[in-house]
């Protein structure tokens, strides 16, 4: 086993880890030793092939299909230099004031998060895609929402030189999406922060981590040789993403009382909804995600967003099988898609645990209120599809495969709770939040409002695990804002006399 020593070790390089690395870069410049240990590889540009199965297998943990304990939902999160920011769509929203108020974390206010979010919006080139680069899949959604008098907004996105390949969730082949792999990590590295890829942290010990480097069939080789490494550090910042951060902390048996570690996980459970138009529409060319409808956020607790997925992902998202399913798939160039997300309440029993091998097990129950939100979201999406001119709509919570246009007045009779059964309907989640929530003390949280783990002043969490409740919007920008706070606290501690 190789022994190494650093001032700060950051575990994970996604939205949280990449941000912390960049914010600590000035310290690296003035001589502090800082390392980012990332489980996934760093991809070469030519490796972003856009082939669905190949890229999903390489870029995501378990190909993007991590199952919850009861098998009723799949979870998607990235595994790469840049974490999930390599596969996210780059929609960039600032958390709302009422959401932060609902979190109720003393010392954490909206103005602070908004200020920090604005910094990353500028850094990540966040802007609105011009009308001429929006495809029909997006514009049909916007226009239908407006005709229905439902609030619809354009997503600001973080792209630079986007050429509309539509492949964001398989890794951008045009180097346009401004994830941490494009912006924050390269900046950190140029200041002297070391990023070690293909390096999984197995365990955290007292001011040290045990990591294993394994060779990978693709990407650049790791900076460290394969094998075990024990890395001492004055500060450790865990940014492995909500699921893996919790699993790592749990299997480390830390010497602190952390009774809610892993608990209060939220996920924004989501449905991919599909409808068919009578003619081809532009759908997979162009940036996939330009609009969202938050008209029902308060009343029904769901969000609707434009989206466009790939053939396998689309096929498995639809309920049913056989000829009608295949017929709809064959009309791929006529498909319009909407992603609906439930704004799920935080519940203590929704939790990340670990199995005997120390690997994560996500125990998440799709509660009635969440399923009701999804049901309402399906009905709303069906109305949008028909308003946009669709001839048939696949709403999974129906008895038949599709609702025909002639039946569009009967949506509420056809889309019913009886058919919205977990396991029957494909439910997935990509916004994993919580498990190491911020708060006042160990009885209801894992860290304080600066991400410092209760009782362990050398250990911080700096990622999506920090959310006390869900973000109620697409979360990456808020994760960066939270990670920015964590980096500020680590900087202050490291710069204090004696560095404590």
């Amino acid at each position, binding site marked *: 086993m190789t022994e190494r020593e650093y001032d700060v070790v950051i575990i994970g390089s996604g939205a949280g880890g990449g941000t912390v690395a960049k914010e600590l870069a000035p310290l690296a410049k003035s001589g502090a030793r800082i390392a980012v240990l990332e489980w996934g590889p760093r991809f070469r540009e030519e490796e972003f092939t*856009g*082939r*669905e*199965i190949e890229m999903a*297998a390489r870029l995501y943990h378990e*190909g993007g*299909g991590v199952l919850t304990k*009861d*098998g*009723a939902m799949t979870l998607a999160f990235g595994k790469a230099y840049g974490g999930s920011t390599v596969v996210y769509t780059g929609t960039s929203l600032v958390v709302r004031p009422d959401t932060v108020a609902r979190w109720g974390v003393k010392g954490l206010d909206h103005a602070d998060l908004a200020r920090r979010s604005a910094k990353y919006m500028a850094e990540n080139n966040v802007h609105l895609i011009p009308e*001429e*680069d*929006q*495809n029909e899949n997006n514009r049909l959604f916007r226009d239908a929402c407006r005709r229905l008098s439902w609030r619809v907004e354009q997503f600001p996105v973080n792209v630079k030189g*986007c*050429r*509309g*390949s*539509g*492949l964001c969730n398989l890794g951008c*082949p*045009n180097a346009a999406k401004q994830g941490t792999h494009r912006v924050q990590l390269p900046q950190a590295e140029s200041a002297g922060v070391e990023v070690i890829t293909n390096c999984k942290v197995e365990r955290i010990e007292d001011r040290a981590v045990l990591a294993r480097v394994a060779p990978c069939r693709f990407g650049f080789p790791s900076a460290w040789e394969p094998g075990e490494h024990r890395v001492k550090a004055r500060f450790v910042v865990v940014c492995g993403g909500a699921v893996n951060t919790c699993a790592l902390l749990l299997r480390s048996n830390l010497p602190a009382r952390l009774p809610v570690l892993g608990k209060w996980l939220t996920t924004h459970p989501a449905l991919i909804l599909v409808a068919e138009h009578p003619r*081809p529409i*532009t759908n*997979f*060319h*162009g940036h996939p995600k330009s609009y969202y409808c938050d008209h029902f956020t308060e009343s029904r607790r769901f969000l609707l967003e434009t989206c466009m997925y*790939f*053939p*396998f992902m*689309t*096929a*498995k998202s639809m*309920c*049913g*099988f*056989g*000829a009608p*399913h*295949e017929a709809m*798939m*064959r*009309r*791929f*160039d006529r498909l319009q898609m909407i992603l609906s997300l439930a704004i799920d309440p935080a519940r203590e029993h929704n939790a990340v645990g670990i199995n005997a091998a120390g690997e994560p097990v996500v125990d998440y129950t799709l509660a009635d209120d969440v399923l009701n939100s999804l049901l309402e979201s399906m009905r709303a999406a069906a109305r949008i599809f028909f308003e946009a001119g669709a001839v048939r709509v696949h709403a999974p919570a129906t008895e038949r495969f599709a609702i025909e246009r002639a039946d569009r007045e009967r949506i509420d009779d056809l889309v019913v709770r009886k058919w919205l*059964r*977990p*396991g*029957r309907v*494909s439910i997935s989640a990509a916004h994993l939040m919580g498990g190491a929530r911020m708060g006042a003390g160990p009885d209801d949280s894992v860290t304080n409002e600066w991400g410092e783990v209760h009782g362990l002043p050398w250990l911080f969490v700096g990622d999506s695990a920090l959310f006390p409740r869900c973000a109620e919007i697409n979360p990456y920008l808020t994760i960066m804002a939270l990670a920015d706070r964590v980096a500020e606290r680590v900087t202050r501690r490291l710069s204090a006399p004696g560095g404590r």
Partner: protein
Amino acid sequence: MNERLFLAVAGRIVPGVGSLDAAGRQAFLALVREFMESKPPALRRQIDLFLSLIRWLPLARHLRPFEALSPERQDAVLLGFQESRLLLLRRGFWGLKALAFMGYYGRPVAAAAVGWRPEREGNRRLHP
């Protein structure tokens, strides 16, 4: 995995599986095999077990295994799993369906055949 049985089930899930030529069938099975090999033995066993269940469950009612049933009866058996009151059976069928879709639509040639042909310069298609 009993690949013949899986092909029979997959052929009802995606009818196109039944009309694949030898090369297409090999490409389909190659993706399925690769997936299976990447999974822990416990999950592979579960998938095998579920396939066996699909095969033998019809015996009680129709006195024949799944492969020997008419296509309509095969569909009815699969629908029974999809609509089951037991989450275990619903999710098992969902997993099998996903495997069939992956093998079929995961082949680049099938993805292109349904009309998904992304281009690096996709925006050019928006303003010809």
